């Protein structure tokens, strides 16, 4: 019965296996933790993530390795994205620490275990080479996040946003699955690289394929949170406990970028003219709606939610311009994809800092998520005001901060493919975007404080936040290393 069973190569998936094992172990160990602050659980969770990073770093070989019957791929893009993923989740959990322990409903072992499972889901998404793997990873991530949003179950806002997230998320998963089934119908395979081979070989029913593609792109657009599939973003970001918002708003963008690359570029490159048009529309609409709607917000979490929509729209521009048609054949332009990857990593760095700031400003029984809570921050804590200033100018795309070079590299890709009108549209919407980032700076620097309560921030948080802010400045002055890393990762993986 087991005669044909070949033990798959487990090494490429070693971090995933380690994380899954540890998540289950922590779930058990947590039963014995009596401490309401869950210190042991927290430490084990962080050690697990650091352990994953170490394993990942040791198993990097720069080659593309398939395992589990080609369902799982480990390439340099996956390695780089996963290492940033671990760093992000570690930072997120650190920022959340005080916030979570102050709130009884959140301070449970499950909180940390769910965060680990969500991370596992993202890792699987990043390494997926099969429609089913994509789907399994996505659902693992989504289900963990639904539960985390709803964890503060006495809060009406949290419960409502969890319901909304769940219903719309299920719908999006449905769309994605439907699209996958159509593509399966047209090509006869679920394996992403095999789909590309079948398409290249020809004799595929184009209309079924395009039909499937529309659903696939819709599902992806939902997960990326781009217009017109963005409705859930503001409500979920706003309603979820801020520590969970931080998790939803940061790391999953890396995974969403990865599955977009895998599905559209690795799998459906022959369909590029079809999906390029769709993504262009999504990108322009996202930049328009995201930036315009953000102006009207009075809540910082909602403002950052709309800003997330516009940033994802901007990031898509790099994916749109990644394939150039030369004499009817498609040539890949890894330079454009690496600009998108650089954009996504920079964005995650900035957004982690911005939501982290909300967490640090909050205290027991007080959420610092209204814009007015930032009034006069320069008087109360000049250094945090300076970090927030850097983050805001970086998001607005002003040098010397990393956000400028992120926008720059994507725009350069757009201009290089002669889509100058698209570049002009993009810069004009970033101009509109600059307004609401400037407004945060205005509140912090120009206005008098509304609240004189001293900010008590543990030294460790202070250091981490400083590191985060300085990273935004450092990669703004010396972006070469990060740019090159993304470039190498993509050329080796495509």
């Amino acid at each position, binding site marked *: 019965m087991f005669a044909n069973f070949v033990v798959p190569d487990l090494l490429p998936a070693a971090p995933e296996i380690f994380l899954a094992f540890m998540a289950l172990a922590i779930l058990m160990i947590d039963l014995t933790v009596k401490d309401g602050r869950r210190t042991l659980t927290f430490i084990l969770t962080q050690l697990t993530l650091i352990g994953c990073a170490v394993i990942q770093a040791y198993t990097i070989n720069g080659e593309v390795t398939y395992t589990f019957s080609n369902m799982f791929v480990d390439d340099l893009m996956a390695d780089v994205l996963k290492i940033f993923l671990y760093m992000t989740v570690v930072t997120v959990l650190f920022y959340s620490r005080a916030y979570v322990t102050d709130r009884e409903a959140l301070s449970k072992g499950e909180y940390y275990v769910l965060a680990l499972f969500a991370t596992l889901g993202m890792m699987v998404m990043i390494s997926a080479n099969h429609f089913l793997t994509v789907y399994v990873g996505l659902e693992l991530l989504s289900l963990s996040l639904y539960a985390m949003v709803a964890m503060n179950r006495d809060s009406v806002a949290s419960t409502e946003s969890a319901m909304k997230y769940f219903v719309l998320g299920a719908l999006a998963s449905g769309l994605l699955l439907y699209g996958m089934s159509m593509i399966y119908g047209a090509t006869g395979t679920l394996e992403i690289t095999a789909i590309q081979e079948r398409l290249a070989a020809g004799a595929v029913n184009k209309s079924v394929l395009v039909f499937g593609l529309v659903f696939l792109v819709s599902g992806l657009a939902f997960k990326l949170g781009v217009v017109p599939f963005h409705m859930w973003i503001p409500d979920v970001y706003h309603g979820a406990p801020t520590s969970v918002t931080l998790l939803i708003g940061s790391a999953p963008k890396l995974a969403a970028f990865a599955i977009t690359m895998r599905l559209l570029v690795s799998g459906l490159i022959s369909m590029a003219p079809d999906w390029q048009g769709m993504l262009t529309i999504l990108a322009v609409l996202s930049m328009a709606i995201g930036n315009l709607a953000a102006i009207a917000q009075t809540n910082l979490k909602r403002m950052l939610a709309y800003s997330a929509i516009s940033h994802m729209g901007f990031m898509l521009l790099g994916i749109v311009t990644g394939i150039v048609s030369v004499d009817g054949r498609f040539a890949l332009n890894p330079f454009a994809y690496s600009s998108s990857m650089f954009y996504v990593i920079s964005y995650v760095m900035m957004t982690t800092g911005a939501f982290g700031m909300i967490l640090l400003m909050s205290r027991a029984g007080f959420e610092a998520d209204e814009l007015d809570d930032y009034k006069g921050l*320069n008087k109360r804590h*000049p250094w945090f005001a300076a970090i927030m200033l850097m983050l805001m*100018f970086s998001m607005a795309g*002003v*040098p*010397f901060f990393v956000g*400028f*070079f992120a926008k*720059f*590299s994507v*725009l*350069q890709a757009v*201009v*290089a493919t002669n889509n*100058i009108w698209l*570049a*002009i549209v993009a*810069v*004009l919407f*970033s*101009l509109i975007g*600059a*307004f609401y980032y*400037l407004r945060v*700076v*205005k509140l912090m*620097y*120009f206005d008098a404080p509304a609240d004189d309560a001293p900010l008590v921030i543990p030294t460790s948080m202070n250091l981490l936040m400083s590191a985060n802010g300085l990273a935004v400045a450092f990669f703004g002055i010396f*972006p*070469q290393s990060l*740019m*090159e890393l993304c*470039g190498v990762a993509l050329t080796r993986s495509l």
Partner: protein
Amino acid sequence: MSTYPLLSLAIWIPIVAGLIVLATGNDRNAPLARILALVGAVVSFLVTIPLWSGFDIANGGMQFVELKSWIPSFNINYHLGVDGISMLFVILNAFITIIVVAAGWEVIQNKVAQYNAAFLIMSGLMNGIFTSLDGILFYVFFEASLIPLYLIIGVWGGPKRVYAAFKFFLYTLFGSLLFLVAQMYLFVQSGGSFSILDWHKLPLEMGPQIWIFLAFLIAFAVKVPMWPVHTWLPDAHVEAPTGGSIVLAAIGLKLGAYGFLRFSLPIVPDAAHQLSGLVVALSLIAVVYIGFVALVQSDMKKLVAYSSIAHMGFVTLGFFMFSAMGIEGALVQMVSHGFVSGAMFFCIGVMYDRVHSRQIADYGGVVNTMPKFAALFMLFSMANAGLPATSGFVGEFMIILGAVKFNFWVAFAAASSMVVGAAYTLWMYKRVIFGDVANEHVAELSDVNKREFAILAVLAICTLWMGLYPQPFTEVMHASVNDLLHHVANSKIQ
């Protein structure tokens, strides 16, 4: 040639000094912050002196060149250099920074360290603009310098400071974003170079040239500012603290004009010839119409702000005469305006600090209580009106001479506007200084103290020096201006 990287020192000494000043913290250490800021400004000025003393006037090319790779992924270099066009502005900028730090010595009592740090950092960034020979390096400094001025206007400004700060930032950003897209296009056309000097040699068709010229025009016209995109300037000047107005008028406005010489004329010469009529028309509107607008102002700062726009109209007019006389006249006018407008704003600041009003109607008979001040203010008003023997005359006279060769009626319109210039300045002077003592505020005025006298005296010496013996200023320009005209005269259409 010096072995020290003088230009890097000119950029980074003020920035590092600014960060050190920032580190002195809150207002308990204000005296220390002031002294450190003054030391930083003086040292920054001293390192720029060898640029002039060691300048080779026979060489029209770049001197003191520094070239290091910065972002190899996009072939962006840390490429610095000065020629006869930019050298004087580096020194002027460093000089004005000392004036500004001294001007805020007693007046600024709130967030002293941040105030001085903002000016020092801005000074370094603006030196970066004048010395960059790489398009992106230029852009990065150009946009980053908005941040300190935004904060200066917004934090230490007048009652409508928020509106003025936003308007200033967004107007300038709007212009510079299109400039960025144009640079990206040039990068693609030049086969992957951001070097401004490479672009000077790049052949371009007329169609692209026109578009690039317009993109440059929007960026620089906003910054100069030219009619009809000048409306941010009166607001910014009126609301900014005295130091902010001095820097904005003395250096800020020169950045746009400098951009015309570094980018518009040599990179797209054919379009510049083609569209010179447009620029000349806009310049004449600025000179004549804005002159009349200045005449009816009741606020002194607004009046000087409008007079700055009119004077900068002369500058852009001089550039588009395409003659050595016109361009050198415009450069002399720029340097002279740096001294004179800086001094005018400082004089208004001196009165404002005592009376807390900028309305002309609140003054009268100031000469009775402030005789020394009245004498110096007289000199600067005369210079602003373009009286011979002051620096204001030299530049305007040269531009008008250049204009006569270009077109008699243009010269006629420009020359007759000098009458308006004399009218608004001297009429303001008459109403403020002469007559009977208007009210008890004026009766209680005390004359300038030693600090104020020293600042005004130094500026007066500069104004008279340039007016009586402009040779040292013009001789450094000849070779570079001829070089520039050589570029402008050669068509790039092949």
